[in-house]
């Protein structure tokens, strides 16, 4: 009898031990992300999350942007289940949501305040009115210019310049002997590189990728005007080798004082005004992206957002993490540790209402640029697609990159603007026909 009792006691305590061990075993979230300053900062601040959620551990997989996109698509399409949270962009979100690949994020907690998310961001990251990716940081594009060179050229940058003014200023600021180029713009081929920029230029010249019936429009006079303008401007006032310049290459040129103006992502503002890296940190001004008076400015809209793949076995924990990383409290946390200038921009309205944040030199222009962008109505004419610097269809990555190679070759002097447009029109037409659009 005593023996049986002892056995029962041992069994019970063993059972208790096992259940405790299971109870205490942490759930691990694998998060796929890119190596951007704001993401790296987040990785350094995760103690705040794990201390509030003791049962959840975080594992980071940092990948190069294109590798991340390919890995995540591959994993999500094959239901590999490698990632519980992933960093995706505004282009993928509506497409993947339509496929049923993402978990809807309409229940991130009572204090999450989804209505505080900037309207442009919210609509770009939603599908059928439901949020599928929470914006971690958002950006538009704007003009960054050298105030000293502008003054030397005897010009004054308006808050909302036209392309004609930009061209005039670029030519006036160019001093090739001293390696100062009036304007630095993207030329490196890629749907997210030169085509992001070129598409915004085209929008502002009244061009569009497709008409209402999905017929490619690259043979229209608007495209010709836009591409010829870009080509001429870069020939006269751009740096040598511009056909291989992307964001980072232009950032380097601008920081070394070799560009009079640079039109690119608003997030660059914090880099070019950082005296540790930039030789021109105290001589930078900002203005809205240019237009031609046709009603659309050449500014884009982009967000790096956190999404949860459908089928993850840690959905609840993943939602807790996404809510934490994109909350108002997180912005406060970054501000308290790293200062307001380092807070991830472009995601929440309340951030721009904060008097402390309003003191950051590029805050106002970033918000105005984001607000001026409307992915639902990106062009002067009617279009059947969503997206400003991209077309939110699965075929875009392919056609955008292929067309980008033509325009990059044009910039490198291998073909004329007319030839580039003709080839781009032909390949887009082929691709769209093959995809069954017309």
């Amino acid at each position, binding site marked *: 009898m005593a023996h049986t009792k002892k056995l029962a006691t041992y069994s019970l305590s063993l059972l208790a031990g096992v259940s405790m061990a299971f109870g205490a075993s942490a759930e691990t979230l694998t998060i796929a992300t890119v190596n951007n300053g704001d993401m790296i900062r987040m990785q350094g601040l995760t103690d705040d999350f794990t201390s509030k959620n003791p049962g959840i551990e975080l594992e980071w*997989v940092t990948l190069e942007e294109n590798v991340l996109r390919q890995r995540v698509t591959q994993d999500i399409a094959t239901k*590999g289940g490698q990632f519980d949270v992933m960093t995706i962009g505004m282009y993928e979100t509506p497409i993947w949501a339509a496929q049923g690949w993402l978990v809807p994020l309409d229940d991130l907690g009572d204090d999450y305040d989804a209505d505080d998310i900037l309207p442009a961001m919210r609509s770009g990251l939603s599908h059928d009115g439901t949020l599928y990716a929470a914006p971690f940081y958002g950006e538009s594009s704007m003009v960054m210019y050298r105030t000293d060179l502008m003054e030397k050229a005897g010009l004054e940058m308006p808050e909302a310049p036209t392309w004609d003014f930009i061209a005039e200023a670029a030519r006036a600021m160019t001093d090739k002997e001293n390696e100062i180029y009036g304007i630095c713009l993207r030329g490196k081929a890629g749907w997210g590189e030169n085509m992001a920029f070129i598409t915004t230029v085209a929008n502002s010249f009244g061009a569009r990728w497709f008409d209402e019936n999905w017929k490619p429009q690259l043979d229209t006079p608007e495209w010709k005007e836009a591409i010829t303008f870009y080509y001429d401007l870069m020939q006269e006032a751009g740096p040598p080798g511009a056909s291989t310049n992307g964001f980072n290459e232009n950032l380097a040129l601008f920081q070394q004082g070799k560009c009079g103006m640079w039109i690119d992502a608003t997030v660059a503002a914090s880099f070019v005004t950082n005296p540790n890296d930039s030789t021109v940190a105290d001589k930078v001004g900002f203005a809205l992206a240019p237009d031609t008076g046709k009603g659309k400015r050449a500014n884009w809209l982009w967000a790096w957002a956190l999404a949860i793949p459908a089928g993850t076995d840690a959905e609840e924990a993943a939602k807790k993490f996404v809510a934490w990383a994109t909350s108002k409290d997180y912005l406060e946390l970054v501000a308290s540790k790293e200062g307001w200038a380092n807070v991830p921009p472009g995601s929440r309205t309340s951030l721009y209402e904060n008097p402390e944040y309003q003191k950051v030199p590029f805050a106002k222009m970033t918000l105005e640029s984001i607000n001026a962008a409307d992915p639902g109505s990106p062009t002067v004419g009617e279009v059947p697609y969503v997206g400003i610097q991209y077309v939110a269809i699965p075929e875009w990555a392919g056609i955008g990159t292929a067309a980008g190679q033509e325009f990059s070759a044009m910039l490198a002097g291998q073909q004329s603007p007319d030839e580039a447009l003709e080839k781009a029109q032909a390949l887009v037409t082929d691709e769209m026909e093959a995809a069954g659009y017309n």
Partner: protein
Amino acid sequence: MARAVTKQRKTINTIAAWAVGLLIFFPILWTILTSFKTEAQAISDPPVFLFFDWTLENYGVVQERSDYMRFLWNSVIIAGGSTLLGIIVAVPAAWSMAFVPSKRTKDILLWMLSTKMLPAVGVLYPIYLIFISLGLLDTRIGLVVVMMLINLPIIVWMLYTYFREIPGEILEAARMDGASLKNEILYVLTPMAVPGIASTILLNFILAWNEAFWTLNLTAAKAAPLTAFIASYSSPEGLFYAKLSAASTMAIAPILILGWFSQKQLVRGLTFGAVK
């Protein structure tokens, strides 16, 4: 006169060898130098070669941000494991092809090599799906097997070439003395082929260490080796060359040191073959 020419030729040869050596080594040297620069110096134009403020900051950042030892350990296991497994499979295969060839041996060898001609991405999805169903995604064992399979044709080919140089009569003599097949391979063939096997092992280890397509595609957090560690320092928005160079230097250092110490063995194996 003849002596003078020889001396002159020797000098020219030495200079040419150094020039070619430096040319090949230059990208690695540049990576190492860049790792000691600041991000601003790393992209400065004109580039700075030696006269800059040397800093260890990048190494500090990389050390702080990534768990280097975990990546290193994964690389060692994947490269070491796949090499070991490959040798175990390839030695008997190469033995049979070299010493008891059939009519179709040449065809089999060519067919094996032809698998290397297929772009890896062509079989990415089938392998990915197999990995999912076997639960091998993001595991070291999965990568060991894949790396072994990828490098197996090269291992078999190299060993086959070395074995062919060993006179079959020696093995025949061993057999006549009553050696079993196992003893013949272990005690007669292997010792004679050591330089060849060693250089095969080294080359295969280096290939597996540097392989970046499969290691990036089939791993996430747990089994990621040093190639993933390097890739994580590339940034779409922001300067990263100095930190990337520091990560690269840390990733190639172990294999560079290994190569340095074993260069004699490697050169001997690659140039002289098994038997002088």
